[in-house]
């Protein structure tokens, strides 16, 4: 399946899942999408707070930080040095070991090509 078709199909099926549910807990109404079946991270479509339980793709994950729209969480355990897969391709290597539900970002994932920078780095320089 081509790249755009698989991403858009995933988003549509996740939206469909969200609409049908009638649950009591706030955690169940969240929305995380896996863009490709080989991915080991999910992308947040609706913000959740630290400790929230996420139900996605047959698993129940507890997030370890406030997760904003566009950010990633681990779908499964990822070991230090493992490749993180998003869109079906590697987007870098884990620098720490994480459990399912962990926020995956600059504090535990690094590029295999070029380092990223934030405004805090600039201050330190």
């Amino acid at each position, binding site marked *: 399946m*081509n*790249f*755009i078709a698989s*991403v*858009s199909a995933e*988003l*549509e099926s996740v*939206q469909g899942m*969200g*609409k049908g549910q009638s649950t009591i807990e706030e955690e169940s109404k969240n*929305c995380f*999408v896996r*863009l490709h079946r080989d991915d080991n991270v999910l*992308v*947040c*479509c*609706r913000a959740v707070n630290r400790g929230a339980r996420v139900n996605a793709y047959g698993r129940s994950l507890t997030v370890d930080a406030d997760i*904003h*729209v*566009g*950010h*990633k969480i681990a779908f499964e355990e990822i070991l230090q040095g493992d490749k993180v897969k*998003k*869109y079906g*391709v*590697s*987007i*870098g290597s884990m620098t720490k070991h994480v459990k399912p539900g962990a926020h*995956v*970002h*600059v504090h535990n*994932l*690094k*590029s*295999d*090509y*070029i*380092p*990223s*920078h*934030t*405004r805090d780095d*600039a201050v330190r320089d």
Partner: protein
Amino acid sequence: MKGYSRSDGRVGIRNVVLVVYLVECAHHVARAIVEKSVDENGPVELVGFPGCYPNDYAFLMMERLLTHPNVGGILLVSLGCEGFRREALEKVVAESGRPVDTLVIQHTGGTKKSIVSGQESVKTIAKSIKMAPIVEMRLEDLIVGTVCGGSDGTSGISANPAVGRCFDYLVNAGATCIFEETGELIGCEDVMADRAATPELALEIRGAIAKAERYYKAMGYGSFAPGNADGGLTTQEEKSMGAYSKSGDSKISGLIKPGDIPNQSGLYLLDVVPDGDPLFGFPNISDNAEIAEMIACGCHLILFTTGRGSVVGSAISPVIKICANPETYEMLADDMDINAGRIITGGASVDDVGEEIVTEVLAVAGGAMSLSEEMGHREFILTYKRFEPIGPACLPGR
């Protein structure tokens, strides 16, 4: 669609008078001329080059920008002693059939007299281009570029795939589409090489990405901003995969550099990273530098996807803003032509938004203003670069 017919056979969607400063020293005079001219004379826009040292890239960019189909007439503003080859530039512009005048501040008698003289020239030029012939414009005449700016984790899953759909539609219908930022395609070389029209082109594309990686490593920074990380993007290659989805699924017909104008319809990749060792620093210091390069390749309008929320437009070619992030859209709705954030909140599919973008492209090409255009955003930057010409494998169709 209708457009303005130009002597080289191309058709423009706007009919702009450009006032062009050829060194920073002439900037104030040029700006004052534009400010005093713009209300009475139709669109009058300011572009320029700040440097006194000569540069082949800057000259080529000016050549292409000043003879762009959206441009009707030109006033060059020179201080008098700068390095820019104003006579050669005026000659190229005159040969394109456009009215052109050169104002040399040191010969005219300084600031006040130059501003008055410049206003007169703009009035005359604007009057003469009012008669520019209008013709039917087909999709085959249209070149559309795309850039992303202020990207975040939503860009690659909403706005960018939607632009990809729009690009697929346009290319299929005979238009020409250009995507760029080889520095933001680091990590995508394998998937892109598969789409190249020929194996030789695939090799050139891989070479361009490898060059980008070397260049950014030497700079010490990738094409990555703090806002990208705030919005969930972690690595260069993750950003690249998201950016890459703007290109759609069409086969890639060629690899071009700033100033190369595709002469056949199709999808093209624009390589913006300079050749050779870094000589002049960061390749595109902010988003408008890439936009100017796309325009120099003939783009009539630009599709600009944004997650964090860019507000820029551009001189010469209008910018259509496509917002990827639903929260950003809430905050900046007045600046966003298309809300692709609905793909994330569940209000629309990638296909739906792709169709909306096509509709907006046709409307803006037909004369409707984009929001940034209406608000007066006409940003422009041009700096120093160095390029080798593209080799024959880069344009296999030729």
